[in-house]
């Protein structure tokens, strides 16, 4: 039997993108479709650079990355959740929660205790979601939708509906996370970069990362290989809540005061960044690197459109178009047909 024909048949069958070694034996068109998002990103950069020479100036790039850091940190955690085949809509209100909690505890017990206390509280919420979705196998969309609402209520109750401010904004060192520079680089960027590389390595290089891909790629096959699927999903949510707590820390430290709705709506923007990076909502496909690209694309579109004189909100429309195009081209490449077979 011809090996080649076999492969052609294989190409048409149900298949998902593999995390490693994606360049072997692929045709140019497929590479284009798969790496489309990187190519689109490059085109964007080139286009904006031509349109405005300030675009690639170091301070501009730094500014973009810095303002993307909070969204980015959250997107890293959500990438784990999405890879494991689930959704997390609660990260926005969870981020509000951690911001408010850390600001409140800052004045009550001091920043040294406030930070670990806030992390612990946020990660308890993550563990609760992880338990409901991982161990009880409840639908992640609805659980996290419920948690979105519940955590929002928790935050409002906690804060009594008021904004939270640090009393002595000048005298606290708490602002180092959000406002200072280290070796000329803003600390939020450093934290984002550190977290991205740590989680990137965790995902790509460790047994745990391998299990996340397996559970998301085919949960049943993972179970049949002796992997504890419940535990993997649980830890993904705990990890995600750790990222959310970090984002809350950055947000609180940057502003030293906050509304209790600071994270509202972020859950869907974060998800948009992850999808833009090419992660499949079905699970099992995507990487931390791609998510970072997705986050940066969102940041650079916003910045680039502003620089070429378009309104701030034009970025939403552009994001809409590229999200759909990115996902469409991805699935079109997989099914070998541009238009869907839906009758």
């Amino acid at each position, binding site marked *: 039997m011809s090996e080649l024909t076999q492969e052609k048949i294989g190409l048409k069958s149900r298949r998902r993108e593999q995390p490693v070694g994606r360049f072997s034996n692929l045709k140019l068109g497929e590479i284009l479709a798969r790496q489309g998002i990187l190519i689109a990103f490059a085109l964007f950069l080139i286009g904006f650079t031509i349109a405005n020479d300030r675009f690639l100036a170091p301070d501009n790039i730094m500014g973009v990355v810095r303002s993307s850091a909070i969204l980015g940190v959250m997107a890293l955690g959500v990438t784990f959740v999405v890879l494991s085949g689930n959704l997390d*809509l609660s990260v926005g209100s969870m981020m509000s929660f951690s911001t408010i909690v850390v600001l409140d505890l800052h004045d009550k017990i001091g920043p040294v205790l406030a930070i670990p206390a806030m992390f612990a509280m946020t990660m308890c919420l993550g563990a609760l979601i992880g338990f*409901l979705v991982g161990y*009880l*196998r*409840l*639908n992640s*969309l*609805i*659980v996290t*939708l*419920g*948690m*979105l*609402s*519940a*955590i*929002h*209520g*928790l935050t*409002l*109750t906690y804060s*009594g*509906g008021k904004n939270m401010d640090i009393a002595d904004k000048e005298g606290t060192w708490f602002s180092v996370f959000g406002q200072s520079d280290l070796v000329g680089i803003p600390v939020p960027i450093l934290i984002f970069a550190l977290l991205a590389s740590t989680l990137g390595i965790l995902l790509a290089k460790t047994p745990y990362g391998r299990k996340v891909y397996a559970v998301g790629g085919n*949960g*049943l096959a993972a*179970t049949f290989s002796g992997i504890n*699927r419940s535990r993997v999903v649980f830890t993904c949510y705990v990890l995600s809540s750790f990222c959310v707590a970090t984002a809350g820390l950055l947000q609180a430290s940057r502003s030293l005061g906050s509304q209790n709705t600071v994270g*509202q*709506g972020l859950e*869907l*923007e974060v*998800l*948009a960044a992850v*999808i833009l990076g090419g992660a499949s*909502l079905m699970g099992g496909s995507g990487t931390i690197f791609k998510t970072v690209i997705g986050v940066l694309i969102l940041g650079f579109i916003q910045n680039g459109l502003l620089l070429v004189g378009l*309104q*701030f*909100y*034009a*970025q*939403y*429309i552009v*994001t*809409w*178009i590229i*999200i*759909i195009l990115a*996902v*469409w081209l991805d*699935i*079109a490449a997989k*099914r070998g047909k541009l*238009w*869907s*077979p*839906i*009758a």
Partner: protein
Amino acid sequence: MEPGTLSTFLKRGAIWGFIVFELIFFSLAGEFLSFSDKAFMDLDNMLLLFKQSAPIGIIAVGMTIIMINGNIDLSVGATYALSAIVLLDSMTWPMFAGMGNAVIPIAWGLALLTGVVLGALNGLIVWKTGVDAFIVTLGAMLGYRGLVFMYNGEQPTSHLNWTLVDFAEAQFLGLHTATWFLVAVTAAVWFLMNKTVHGRNAYAIGDNRAAATNAGIRVGPHMLINFMIIGFLASLSAVAFYSESGSVNPNDGELYELWVITAVVLGGTKLTGGAGSVLSTLGGVLAIQLLRKGLGHIGADTETVNLAIGIILIAVLLLDRQLNIKGKEELRV
């Protein structure tokens, strides 16, 4: 009893039982705690409750069809806001100057058309590209919201037409105009889903898409029609609300998609499609609104309503799981 019957019964009837529970609980708690000297089940209070349920309720009825069909729509909040802007702004367009109140039906028509077009766009993309509705409408949520902001920046768009305000505030047989809208929409969609071929096919598609396709049902057009309906209903909801308020902020309608989905799920619509009822969704909407009012009535922080709804939503899911568990013979995966 066949397996699943109990769970089905609970799903279909439970929301009304829950509403009765809420009514009794808040009435009694209100008495005992005596935070309020007004009775909870006061007629005016209830009429107001219906009116306040209308904006979310009208959209939730549309979301029920979408979810029965096996899809989801996250863009309804943005569609709602954009339609509201078209409604209010079009009345000030120079081309309609001097038309007097004749501009009202035109403005309504334009607002509703906006919703239908935005819905159709979502539907066409889902149909023709095969991209999951979750992603398509997540993108649209951002895109349509972008259009809203492009329209008037961060400024509110305002136009008060007193004839319109009078109409919106009118009460007929005791019910407010918005309530009548909700009633009419629920009745119409109930008819559509239960009595017409389109409705029954929509159920079949959500239930077993492969079987529907094999039986020759064209999945795409049915999905398109349903997206047009939810777009229409999102703008109708805007028409009902903004005729009275006369001013729309660009971030109005944010998080509506989540409230609406919560109401639909509380009403027992199956997440994977194929089962659900607009009447139960109406129950879900009323239950949420009752909770909101009731917590205020007994003097609880109104903010706790979010907490309560979140917990109830997850509890419903847990209950459903317990009822559907098959026992020891099940594969431990």
